[in-house]
């Protein structure tokens, strides 16, 4: 029993108790620490203003989106995986599974695929000028049959597939769905995620992206299609992480993330899409970096602002449309090539901040990523970091353990105030798309990145082992070397594929895609671009061929 809980039946605590009883029946989530003290799954009381404090699972979800969180369902460990050809990545997948990784919710397997840069941007391996990047830093995938190798023998109803990529996202989702269809899986049983980073004009998609207006139109098309046909699929990941990594401050990154949601929602509303049918499948990717308490406060502020914007500004009513699901990732830009083992410690603190924030999924970077692609040893250590936090530290026993802290609560409120101020400024400037088109956004982010760098240069900000406590010890760490043969094999493979397929059927499917694009561009038949992408992928069109059509129809950035 917690002292100081309000007794009234309509108090947040009483409501929370009823929610827990209704949802989890008579399960007991109390833990006991080493000293024998029984721990409640969450603590409540009066907030700083003397009112009964909000509880987890209650609007506006500052303290978390579930009444009971890790005590019932731990976070999903999603180590980033992917290099070389699909067969090579499959080997790494099998290793992770053996090590106890790749665990999704409810005993599913889960994989977080990253693609090489050509694939990520929607280019085939034989596109001129991309050869040096094939299979380097991600998997090379350009056709539906690649998924038959990558996921050979996997029950796709029991496998959650997350695809991390940029402008190639729409075509990539189509390749996966086409492969699933060929193997006889019903779309309404498929769970997974495509990051769909085409919303990102903050430094991550660049000139390979669609025009800003074209991108947001495509996001709406994909969301509408999936709501009807692939309802368990998460269609959009707004990456606060990427905005931070491009150099923005936490406040800027949260504000721009919410601004992106506002722009997507406005596009959906304009096209007549019911937001309650699509918004619950949007989620966030949040960076956990150098400011331990600020990371926690920004997560709490993000959940709160998201809930308020979707309910108050857009009239969403479904709880799923108000709850920010968050995939955490530690900060790649803080990984140093100098004294790389220090990165293990940085990553562990970042991961702990994420856990104390109540995130749903976790990617802990490998300590050697500033040196190159991670080694197997480094990937395993990342997984062990998560397992140590989950199963040794006891950090999972109590939800929102920072709730009620004078410091964290005030910082949460202050971040919320500053985020709403930036959102108001973007509104005044005509909305996010106008701010992207004018270059204002990019300028804001670059200025913040430069300021951060100058702080490092001047020593005002410390990076251990870089601008302080530097040593000149020899750096003889093992670095993973991707297969230099991958490019040749991938190019030969796509050439063989083009020679063997039914080219007339493929060309007809691409024509259908072009026609659907024109319709959707005109605001009609929303969802038909994604439908025609799936048909084209099933007709053996490659990622790059589909991308060429989409670029023609939806325009290119810059």
């Amino acid at each position: 029993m917690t002292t100081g809980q309000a007794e009234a039946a309509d108090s947040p605590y009483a409501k929370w108790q009823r929610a827990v009883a209704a949802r989890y029946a008579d399960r007991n989530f109390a833990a006991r620490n080493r000293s024998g003290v029984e721990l409640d799954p969450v603590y409540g009381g009066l907030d700083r203003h003397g009112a009964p404090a909000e509880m987890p699972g209650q609007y506006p979800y500052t303290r978390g989106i579930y009444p009971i969180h890790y005590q019932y369902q731990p976070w999903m460990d999603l180590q980033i995986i992917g290099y070389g050809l699909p067969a090579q990545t499959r080997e790494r997948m099998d290793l992770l599974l053996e090590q106890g990784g790749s665990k999704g919710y409810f005993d599913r397997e889960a994989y977080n695929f990253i693609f090489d840069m050509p694939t990520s941007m929607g280019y085939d391996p034989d596109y001129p000028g991309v050869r040096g990047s094939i299979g380097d830093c991600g998997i090379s995938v350009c056709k539906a049959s690649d998924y038959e190798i990558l996921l050979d023998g996997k029950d796709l109803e029991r496998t959650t597939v997350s695809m991390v990529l940029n402008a190639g996202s729409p075509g990539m989702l189509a390749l996966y769905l086409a492969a699933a269809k060929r193997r006889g899986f019903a779309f309404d049983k498929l769970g997974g995620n495509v990051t769909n980073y085409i919303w990102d004009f903050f430094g991550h998609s660049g000139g390979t992206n669609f025009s800003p207006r074209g991108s947001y139109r495509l996001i709406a098309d994909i969301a509408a299609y999936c709501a009807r046909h692939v309802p368990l699929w998460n269609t959009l990941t707004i990456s606060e992480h990427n905005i931070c990594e491009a150099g923005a401050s936490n406040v800027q990154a949260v504000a721009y993330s919410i601004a992106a949601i506002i722009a997507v929602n406005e596009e959906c509303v304009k096209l007549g899409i019911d937001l309650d049918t699509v918004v619950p499948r949007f989620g966030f990717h949040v960076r956990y970096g150098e400011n331990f308490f600020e990371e926690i406060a920004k997560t709490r502020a993000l959940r709160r602002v998201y809930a308020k914007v979707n309910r108050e500004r857009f009239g969403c009513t479904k709880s799923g449309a108000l709850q920010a699901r968050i995939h955490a990732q530690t900060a790649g830009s803080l990984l140093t090539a100098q004294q790389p083992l220090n990165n293990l410690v940085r990553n562990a603190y970042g991961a702990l901040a994420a856990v104390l924030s109540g995130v749903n999924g976790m990617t802990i970077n490998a300590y050697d990523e500033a040196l190159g692609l991670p080694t197997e040893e480094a990937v395993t250590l990342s997984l062990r970091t998560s397992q140590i936090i989950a199963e040794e530290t006891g950090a999972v026993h109590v939800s929102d353990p920072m709730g009620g802290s004078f410091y964290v609560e005030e910082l949460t409120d202050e971040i919320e105030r500053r985020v709403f101020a930036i959102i108001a400024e973007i509104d005044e400037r005509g909305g996010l798309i106008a701010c992207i088109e004018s270059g204002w956004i990019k300028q804001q982010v670059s200025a913040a990145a430069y300021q951060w760098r100058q702080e490092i240069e001047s020593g005002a900000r410390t990076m251990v082992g870089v601008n302080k406590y530097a040593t000149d010890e020899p750096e003889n760490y093992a670095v993973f070397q991707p297969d230099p043969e991958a490019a040749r094999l991938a190019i030969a493979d796509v050439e063989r594929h083009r020679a063997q397929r039914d080219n007339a059927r493929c060309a007809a499917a691409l024509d259908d895609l072009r026609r659907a694009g024109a319709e959707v561009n005109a605001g009609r038949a929303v969802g038909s671009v994604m439908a025609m992408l799936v048909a084209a992928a099933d007709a053996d069109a490659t990622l790059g061929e589909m991308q060429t059509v989409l670029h023609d129809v939806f325009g290119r950035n810059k």
Partner: protein
Amino acid sequence: MAMQDTAPRPRVLLTKSFIDSHDRAIATIALALRDAAMEVVLIDYEQPEDVVAVALQEDVDVIGISFMSGGQVETTQKIVAELARREVADLPLVVGGIIRPFDVPPLEAAGVREIFRGGAPMADVVATFERLSRTYRGLA
């Protein structure tokens, strides 16, 4: 009081592959070089050969290429070959970003003048571009 240096300021081309979106470092370096009163051209390239075409059009003294996710050796070798073909083999080339140990010997063999990894002091980067520019212009 030192005599005023009337030599032209360095002209620099900074570039990154169109498919490699990790542009935080190169955008930051562009601002640092501008703050050091250099003229900076910042572009994405599709073909490595395009880099040389722009370098010649813009009459730059140094080329800086940034890599995050692949192509370090292959792209650099192609740029070096194109520099030779266009008879500007002495135009200095600087490479930065994720440069792995196995990238270094072929990059050095290709004639790259300097390699900067993450964490390199910005002052060193600025000084290197300054020095390479002056040497290329025959000022030092």
